[in-house]
């Protein structure tokens, strides 16, 4: 019913979409996978009207259409559920749901708040979310926000005659496993009302949910597979263009570690409102993984180790020294490196070049009397570009222009080159394609071999299990269970989930 034929899209210097054919039937769930840069997001933007194709046709039920903007696409029943926080947090839930379409509740220029709230409640019922639509969105959990997002798109039902096509862009990235299950169930139920295009980096989820899967590579659709025929390995092969190593998480390179002289030591540490009574040790060469749902206190622990948060009680020791003043500067000085989740905002400074980003945390090492030795900085950058295989034309390139994986490498190079031996990884592979992920895993093992201690908050449970020596499961800021995870003796998904919820 919705169909793209021979769609082409050019950007200066890039042929982003090459003659794409794509169609979706009524009530169908179509998966869309591909590495970063394969053209997925460009294709999505063409579908929901943010980009106009240079060539080819878009048709709905055989009628050719052309969207100048997302609004026109919406009028044809095409809606987009954006990644995570795309709701405006200072507005109420009801306002968010009908943002841009309030006119229907306006009488004589006045908003009828009662009608608006009632209509919002009806939309929320579609996604089985029982909350008061007049509360401010900031008070919702991430999972609730995701559902509100879906409810918002479903307002198209009332507005548009005909069929709906709903794009789900990485809808599960902030959700815990059981929340993902609920979402999938909901999407399946909703196929009576709409077709879905599901975009995710999580191959297992795509396979689980989709009826058909489009695989993209280099701006082209390289394969379309039905769910029945789909296999993770073959799809990944198509995406990457090569075989995925069976030892994806580099378990064969996992080595044991020395259980003396902990690098980081938490004793009954609490931080009001985020975690309570947490104790653990991190040793050189160890990967310690913190597992839990969003808001279980994982990130807050990382921030406390780094020095961004001050605990309300308990003792934190770094390399045997008890910390009394918590700030990031002394954290860095003690050899801690922090790889934040929001790579583009917290990881790199966009607008600064590769070499500037690499030395930002250790400028003192490349300066005498506050005057920078730019030559040395650049030499360092060139060495690490080489070492980590960072794809950049040169060290002067603005970091904002690099791909996600290469940005992550720059961030890691920043800490490693500065000699950090305690590395905090917060979702280090989020949004990376498979190749880039593997590079990160490789680096994790390499760092362990060099005697670095790593605290990891992983993107998926599989990743957590695969990478870690030890796992601490958290729930609502409380310690739940500790697992050892040496190769061959790893805990199962079920073991973890059992303690998470």
């Amino acid at each position: 019913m919705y169909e793209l034929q021979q769609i082409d899209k050019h950007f200066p210097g890039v042929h982003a979409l090459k003659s794409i054919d794509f169609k979706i039937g009524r009530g169908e769930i179509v998966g869309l996978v591909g590495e970063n840069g394969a053209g997925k997001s460009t294709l999505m933007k063409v579908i929901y009207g943010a980009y106009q194709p240079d060539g080819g046709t878009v048709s709905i039920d055989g009628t050719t259409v052309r969207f100048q903007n997302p609004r026109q696409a919406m009028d044809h029943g095409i809606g987009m559920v954006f990644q995570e926080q795309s709701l405006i947090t200072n507005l109420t839930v009801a306002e968010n749901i009908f943002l841009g379409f309030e006119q229907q509740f306006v009488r004589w220029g006045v908003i009828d708040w009662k009608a608006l709230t009632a209509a919002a409640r009806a939309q929320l019922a579609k996604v089985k979310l029982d909350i008061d639509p007049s509360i401010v969105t900031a008070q919702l959990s991430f999972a609730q926000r995701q559902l509100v997002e879906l409810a918002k798109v479903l307002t198209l039902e009332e507005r548009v005659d005909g069929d709906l096509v709903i794009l789900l862009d990485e809808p599960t990235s902030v959700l815990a496993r059981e929340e993902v299950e609920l979402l999938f169930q909901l999407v399946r139920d909703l196929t009576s009302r709409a077709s879905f295009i599901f975009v995710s980096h999580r191959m297992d989820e795509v396979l689980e949910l989709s009826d058909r899967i489009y695989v993209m590579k280099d701006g082209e659709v390289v394969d379309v597979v039905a769910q029945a025929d789909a296999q993770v390995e073959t799809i990944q092969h198509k995406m990457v263009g090569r075989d995925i190593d069976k030892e994806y998480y580099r378990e064969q390179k996992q080595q044991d570690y020395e259980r003396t002289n902990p690098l980081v030591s938490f004793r009954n540490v609490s931080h009001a409102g985020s975690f309570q009574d947490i104790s653990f040790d991190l040793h050189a060469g160890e990967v310690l993984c913190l597992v839990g749902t969003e808001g279980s206190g994982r990130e807050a622990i990382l921030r406390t180790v780094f020095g961004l948060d001050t605990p309300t009680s308990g003792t934190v020791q770094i390399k045997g020294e008890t910390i009394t003043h918590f700030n990031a500067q002394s954290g860095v000085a003690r050899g801690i490196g922090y790889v934040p989740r929001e790579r583009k905002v917290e990881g790199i400074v966009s607008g600064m070049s590769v070499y500037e980003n690499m030395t930002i945390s250790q400028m003192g090492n490349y300066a005498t009397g506050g005057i920078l030795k730019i030559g040395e900085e650049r030499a360092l950058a060139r060495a690490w570009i080489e070492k980590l295989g960072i794809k950049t034309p040169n060290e002067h390139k603005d970091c904002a222009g690099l791909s996600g994986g290469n940005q992550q490498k720059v961030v890691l190079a920043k800490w490693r080159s500065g000699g950090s031996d305690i590395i905090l990884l917060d979702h280090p592979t989020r949004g990376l394609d498979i190749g880039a992920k593997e590079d990160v895993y490789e680096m994790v093992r390499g760092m362990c071999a060099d005697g670095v201690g790593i605290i990891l908050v992983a993107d998926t449970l599989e990743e957590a299990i695969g990478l870690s020596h030890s796992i601490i499961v958290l729930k609502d800021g409380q310690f739940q269970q500790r697992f050892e995870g040496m190769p061959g003796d790893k805990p199962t998904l079920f073991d973890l989930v059992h303690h998470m919820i």
Partner: protein
Amino acid sequence: MTLETLKPHFPWITLLVLVVLVGALNPSFFDPGALMLLMADIVPLFIMAMGMTFAIYIGGIDLSVQQLANVVTVVATVYLANFGIGVAVIAILIGFLFGAISGYVTTRLFVPSFVSTLAMGFVALSMAKWLSDQRALSMDATLRNDSFGWMFDTTAGFPNELIIALILLALAWFLQTRTTFGRSLKAVGAGELAAVASGLNVDKVKIIAFAISGAFAAIAGLMFSVKLSGGDANLANGFLLLAIVAVLVGGTPLTGGVGGVVNTAIGTLIVMVIRAAMVYLEVDATQQQMVFGIVLIAAIALTIDRSKLRGIVK
């Protein structure tokens, strides 16, 4: 050469076009001696704008500069007799201190710089009024010439004022591009969160940025005071908006991390040319302000590099 690669050069191209335009309409504008004098006269404004650049470069603003210059004109005039050229040190310290307090209020007390600097400016104004007893004071001519007369001599045909400005510009440029502090400024301006997560002491960087802005404002006030050989609590009035305009027209947007002191030098020259053009082209008195506003819109529209504004234009 495409439009994209041309964009960073728009500020000086705009300047060039303006100069050529004014010169074409009135060729006497091209007299090099006169141009040099015009430039020497804009030096205090330029120094103030250069300081302001640091505040804007980190995404803030400093509205206290004019009042800081005011208080410095008074301090310089009152204490010249006691301290001679040493009064310059006092002046710069006062500016630095006021700026640092503004920075502290902004970073530690979470008061937006728009308000904190405005408020600190009022405090400075109070101080200026108190010190001057609300009168216009004049410097003793001998003392002034002994201590600061050299400022208005020439060296090899160049006015010393201009040379001072160039030295300060070189210093500021060095500070901005070649020091750890300058790099930190850029990081804070372009990506504050990443700077925090990299362990930079962001608050300190910001406080110093405002302090530098204050110190430069003090230097501007000092030069102006010596030039006018006196001081009072309103002497530097009229500097503030022009200084902001000079920074913005030069292509340092309020979003931070882009532009810099060299841009401000160009921006100041653009302001100078626009203003001189009013005189050279004999714009009617009642129309001057309107013409200034319209030319300003055109100049800003030309000079800002929108691709570097990143994201949304607020």
